[in-house]
């Protein structure tokens, strides 16, 4: 399972990627939408974990762009903000279950990933 983590907090995604690789999950990370799109062009991924708020492009728009180009890609949203608009938009895209509030428990994240991939 190859995972792409996108969040503007580099330290967060970096650490998260390392923790996932300890759990034998191959994860790459990007801090901008453009970087994430480049990764997708170069390599293939099964799942993308997106922050709702990204510099330049919102997680929701990025999700749409990726989904249009890579229909098989699965998504999980992650946010530090609980505003109703974001929540409504995010959960409409992926469903409530795949909209996670930071800080995220890694075991919970793994569960969601497995569920999503097994579907």
């Amino acid at each position: 399972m190859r995972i792409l983590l996108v969040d503007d907090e580099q330290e967060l995604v970096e650490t998260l990627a390392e923790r996932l690789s300890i759990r034998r999950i191959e994860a790459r990370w990007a801090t901008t939408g453009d970087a994430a799109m480049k990764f997708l062009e170069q390599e293939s991924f099964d799942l993308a974990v997106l922050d709702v708020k990204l510099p330049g492009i919102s997680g929701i728009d990025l999700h749409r762009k990726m989904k249009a180009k890579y229909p098989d890609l699965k998504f999980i949203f992650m946010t530090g903000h609980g505003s109703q608009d974001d929540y409504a938009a995010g959960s409409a895209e992926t469903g409530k279950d795949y909209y996670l509030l930071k800080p995220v428990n890694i075991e919970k994240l793994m569960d969601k990933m497995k569920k999503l991939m097994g579907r």
Partner: protein
Amino acid sequence: MRFLNRIKPAFWDHRILNGAPYRSQFNFRRTWYAAVFVTSAVVLAPLIFMAFMDYRATRHDVESEILLTTSRLVSNIRRSISYFFDERKSALHFLVHDNNFKMDENPRRLAQVLENLKKSFGGFADLGCIRPSGIQGVYAGPYNLTGKDYSNQEWFKEVVKRGEFISDVFSGFRHVPHIVMALKFPSSDGSFGVLRATLDTGKFDNLLSNLEIDGHGDAFLVNHEGVLQTPTRSHGKVLERISLPIPDFAPETRVFPWVTKTGATLVIGYRYITDTPFILMVVKHKQELMKAWENTRKELIEFLAISVAFILFVILWGATYLVTRIYESDQKLIVSLHQVEYTNKMASIGRLAAGVAHEINNPLAIINEKAGLMKDLFLFKKEYQKNQVLMGLLDSILGSVTRCGKITKRLLGFARHMDVSIQTVNIEEVIREVLGFLNKEAEYRSIRIAIDVAENLPNMDTDAGRLQQVILNIINNAFAAMENNGNLRVKAVMEGEKDILLTIADDGCGIPETDLKRVFEPFFSTRTGKGGTGLGLSITYGLIEQLGGTINVKSELNRGTTFTITLPLTIKEKEMKNSCAYS
């Protein structure tokens, strides 16, 4: 006073609260006074002025009428009296001029003439001729006056000088009131004689005393010295002096008022009767004549009094009604402004909380991942696996991060509700969420909180933001009322099929019965000056109304207070739209 208190309008005791951010724009009592006084002045002044003018005009009319009728009466009587004298005088003239009357008339013929005069005119008592020397010649009548000497009497001198004479009334030799009428006539020998007739006053006494005069009136004759010539009803007997003033000479009828010593006003009409020594006087009592006017006056004053009372009542009622309306809308406006402010404040707090939570969540997530990574590394590298101290420290960090996460999630949840109108919520969750903010305070103050939510309580479709504000406000109030070690009980059950009954009970200081009715009124506070604005419960009341619910309060002093809130499971969309206008 109790009655006054009962009818006293609400605005009367309105006081501007110091420090209140929104104030009334009116001084209601002054507005009321101004409305009452200005309207009264504008309405009553013309009314009273008109009534006064009408009063004066009517009174003047009545008085003129009295003078006029009196004057007319005097003229009529004067005409009759004049006629009486003229008639007799003409008869005597006729006698001496046209009947070849001689000084030495046959006494029998004179008696015949007297008899004829008595028959045709009446009022003649006797008839006699007097020689120029003043000695009575022939005489016809009941007495034997032949040879009587009149030469020294005033009337004789007068008639010789002026040709004719009518005397005052006098008793004379016979002690019967009578009048002497005398004429001078030329005799055949070139000298003159005087025809003297005695007239009975009974004839015009009757004429005067039989008159019906209104106002206890009296009509009589006086001579120029004020001696009564005819009997009167109330002004003395014949030949007595009248107590009234002798009116000045005037060639025509005159009427004047006169006040007696006793204070009564008389209306006196008089006329000097030409060629006689008599003045005809008609005296009326003004008070009697004014009786009809008294009735009119009474009616006028009664009408005025009733009108004024009615107008005053309408003015007072109208002013009170209008000012009360202004007061009510003003209060509503102030409450609305407060609610808007409150809602805005809550929304700002919500946004602030959300912002803070977001800002904290990112570093918190990093801490979480870093500590997680450390733990991962320790778990995978066997050398640290058994180091309980390090593992404990890491677990403690992760535990704290989880706790922080819960707090920020709660803040975000609270803020999230602020933005939305209607969503599906579980009342227990809302209660726990609100209590989450108060747990620490409860812990410090050893307040025990019991939550008792019935099982299988359906979810509510309501405005969760408002609902949590309601619960937060009431629990905050309860906390303020309770001492340390208090007990708070929050209970939620179904009420019928469509409502949820929420009960929040504390065992705090309670609310005195007198205040209990007013706790939901805006600005009612027992904590004014101590941080209370007196708006918490009124805003709560407004919020519950907007949620389509009702709130009731029961309280016992020093035993505690229970708020009972009924909320519908589903809120009507329409209601919300109306009430959301200002949020």
